[in-house]
């Protein structure tokens, strides 16, 4: 009981130390590292884990996220275990990277308007400016990284 308690305290201290040692933004990157893949990496994961399954079961289906996902899920009982465990993860990573573009409009509102003279309605027009601008917040920079703009 006593030993268990010590362990618990030690664990809590360790967690607290860990939390203070790394800033929040770095932590989210690390925790999310599995999900934060480039398009190239996510596409490679699909090919690597599911290439043979796609050739065997999804002939004629192009590299279209919806159709491919649909085909693989329809064949879920015959595809390899590796594919089954990876394909949703890969497509989710692609989806998350796409959705992260919306996050830039939110995280960079101040920068878009004040530094780049732009509009959050047309975020993509401001991105080249944002990546070069001085005084961009850490949140905004992180959001641009998540979207693959930098």
């Amino acid at each position, binding site marked *: 009981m006593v030993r268990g308690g010590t362990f618990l305290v030690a664990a809590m201290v360790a967690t607290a130390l860990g939390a203070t040692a790394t800033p929040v933004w770095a932590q989210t990157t690390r925790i999310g590292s599995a999900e934060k893949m*480039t*398009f*190239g*990496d*996510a*596409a*490679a994961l*699909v*090919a*690597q*884990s*599911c*290439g*043979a*399954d*796609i*050739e*065997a079961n999804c*002939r*004629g*289906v*192009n*590299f*279209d*996220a*919806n159709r491919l996902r649909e085909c693989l899920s329809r064949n879920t009982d015959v595809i*390899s*275990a*590796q*594919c089954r465990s990876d394909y949703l993860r890969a497509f989710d990573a*692609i989806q998350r990277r*796409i959705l992260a*573009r919306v996050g830039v409009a939110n995280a960079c509102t101040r920068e878009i*308007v*004040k*530094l780049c*003279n*732009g*509009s959050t*309605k*047309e975020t*993509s*027009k401001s*991105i*080249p400016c*944002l*990546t070069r601008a001085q005084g961009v917040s850490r949140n905004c920079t992180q959001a*641009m990284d998540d*979207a*693959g*703009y*930098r």
Partner: protein
Amino acid sequence: MMRIARRALGDFGLPLAVVVAFAASALPARSQTVPERDAIVSQLSQFDSAPELDVAALRQRVLDKSRSRARNEPEPSKRPPIVPEILNLPTFTVDIHFDTDTPVVRPDSYQTVGRLADALVNAQLLPYTFLIVGHSDSTGRREANAILSQRRADSIRDVLANTFKISSKRLQSLGLGEEQFVDQEHPTSPANLQIQIVTVGKVAESEPGQTLAAPPPAAKKGAKAAKKK
């Protein structure tokens, strides 16, 4: 070699049968190098001025030429390029494998297409529009080659637009078939099966506010920001 790399990349749980099947299905003759995002970006961002390209008209011209039955047709390597304009534009050429006679991208080329998408969302390329150009070698029926290369260019455009949500306003596609080769000197070379991405223009400049509802506030904010700076 390739097999080892694949295994090292994945979890070790990848069943051997899958690995073998995959290796066997990969094309042995044409080894594929996956381009780096930054190489694509730096190549395609060297853009000066936009030529006038009427892609719809060009498509028609390719089809017409591919149906040409003229007696004095030059041999394939002597055909004059149908779109000489693109020869002077920033171009990135990639190896993308398709299923035979179809526009379906093979899994061993997914990563390449993903890298293209990564490049196209990069800030340096966001201001530009692109033409995706399909080609073919000089074997097979000339008209069929024109049609297939168009379908393959369309296919890459669709993957970029649908799977990676690259704005379709930035993407056009054109199949040149065997009317303009990648490797003009060698019309039968597999180099002519490659896909080219060409920077052809800038995204239309719709001033924020002009098309949208509220121009005055946007302008005011801009002025304020300029003063503060």
